[in-house]
């Protein structure tokens, strides 16, 4: 960036410092304090010595990976459809991808209570087709959380990929066909490598959003599936253990940060970046 451009980013920079960096430093300092006024690693030691906390951390990260895998599987056909579509169809696909984002996450989550409920269309259909003996609730399990989060987070994966593919020369596929490559080989050696930077950017967004999605995790998973955001809320709102909550929040930040940084580094790998 040239020096002349700094004033234009100053408002965002100021907001980031005041609204994120300063509270983050306060939070970090808090995580090393204890109620008696001491300073040290006690909150972190307690956290890593607690089997429940470790299980919650593991479950949260596992949830993030499952949602990333699920959105990738669901998103791949849409990505291919976008690749082969003409300009008008591409606009329609982008519009349809953006459409769910116009409805609040909270509303979409509560809509899923109806869809996956005992009297919802999925359960009723399964019962009528004889797959289950009687309609039953499909809520309050991890599969339901993954399904709902996949639907909610899907646009975060698709939009970066669509942005990358929009700038890609489609004649590369024609060249591969001319050289004798079949459809699967073209997918594996041309389209996916071209889309890789977008896919990796999407994975980062989906992972970050899925692991921190308090409302969906708590409403669809119920109280028996505890993830870190609910765990932090309990420490703050019920137990009033803020130093402990700050330590958990930092562990969540650090673990998701490391994973996201790894994904970002992968996206910048010369072999992948060169395709973008």
């Amino acid at each position: 960036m040239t020096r002349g451009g700094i004033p234009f980013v100053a408002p965002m920079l100021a907001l980031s410092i005041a609204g994120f960096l300063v509270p983050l430093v306060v939070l970090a300092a808090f995580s090393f304090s204890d109620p008696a006024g001491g300073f040290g690693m006690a909150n972190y030691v307690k956290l890593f010595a607690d089997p429940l906390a470790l299980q919650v951390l593991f479950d949260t990260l596992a949830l993030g990976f499952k949602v990333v895998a699920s959105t990738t599987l669901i998103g791949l056909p849409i990505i291919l459809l976008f690749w082969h579509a003409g300009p008008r169809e591409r606009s329609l696909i982008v519009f349809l991808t953006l459409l769910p984002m116009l409805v609040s996450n909270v509303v979409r989550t509560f809509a899923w209570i109806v869809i996956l409920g005992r009297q919802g269309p999925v359960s009723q259909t399964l019962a009528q087709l004889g797959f289950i003996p009687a309609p039953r609730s499909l809520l309050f399990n991890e599969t339901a959380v993954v399904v709902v989060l996949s639907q909610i987070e899907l646009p975060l994966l698709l939009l970066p990929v669509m942005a990358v593919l929009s700038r890609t020369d489609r004649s590369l596929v024609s060249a591969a066909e001319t050289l004798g490559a079949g459809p699967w080989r073209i997918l594996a050696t041309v389209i996916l490598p071209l889309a890789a930077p977008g896919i990796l950017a999407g994975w980062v967004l989906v992972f970050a959003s899925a692991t921190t999605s308090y409302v969906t995790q708590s409403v669809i998973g119920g109280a028996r599936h505890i993830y870190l955001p609910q765990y932090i809320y309990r420490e703050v709102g019920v137990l009033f253990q803020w130093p402990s909550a700050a330590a958990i929040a930092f562990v969540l930040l650090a673990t998701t940060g490391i994973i996201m940084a790894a994904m970002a580094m992968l996206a910048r790998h010369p072999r992948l970046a060169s395709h973008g």
Partner: protein
Amino acid sequence: MLNRKLSRRSVMAGLGGLVAAPMLGVSRARAAGSVVVAAFPGSWEDAYRAAVAPVVKAAGTELVLAPALAQDQLAKLLASQGKPAFDAMMVSPGQTTEAIARGLIEKVDPSKLKNWSKLLPAAQTEWGPNVTVEITGFAYNPNLVPKPKTYRELFDNPVYHGKVGWVGFGSNTATLAWVEIAKAFGGSEDNMAPAFKILAEHLNKGAVIANSGNQQMALYQQNEIAVFISSVGNVANLKARGVPCEFAHPTTGSPALPVALHLVKGAANPEGVYQYMDAAISADVQRKLAQPPSEILPTNTDVPLTDSLKSFISDADIKNLIYPNWAKINPNRAAWSAEFDRVVKK
């Protein structure tokens, strides 16, 4: 041109100002003549916005309602000691005891409340007026399950298995129920072990564990559950919306939960808080709040029970109310909450 006018020095000054603003108390700036009060989200918030806010407004103060559950209110005040986010809180005895112990609220001056003398004696506390007594018991769907009579029955009778919703110790109503469940299975106000034991056994029988009372109500309306621990007010609210829902008093007595308004220490507008309290305990307001859909039990002696409220609570029920000992419950609540998570975690 812009980069010449915005020098590095002015940009840094702007950044510094933004960072320093909260430290200088800029965040406390509020509209003149307004009072910010915390209220339970949902039906309470709606009812207070409709019935109390216009009366406070007529007295010259704008009432701003900040929806928050009782425990959340306490957490927010603890997080911002000296610079409270709201001027008054609405809580139950569990939180009142904590708020007093932690120095978060002030005693009120009854001479500033002209409706004070109209309150039931039990509703006149030195820390603020009680605006109602929430009576808790079983909310149930008569189309799906028989009327429950005891807490024990919800665990022992297979007809209820997979149809009862439960919430942890973050909720006052649920905490009272768990105390009663502990008693039913041989425990007490400070011995929760029997309740955890029966809960653990019950998890395999399809117990639905929700994260909050509001979440339970959403599940109830979708027929995901047919019974949940509730106040009379929530049942009245569901009935008013056409949802099949009835209230049943436990034969062992219904736990009662007074709801009090408190003046927060360091409130930006204490006089506004007194206007708000006086409006909330006035006969006109409580008469409105006693009507559907809120159906809040009045504490003003000039307000009679409505026929609808009488259908929920008889004189015999009122004599059978249970007022738990929060001094025994509070010290254990954090540990119980943590243990609850351990028991229910899959």
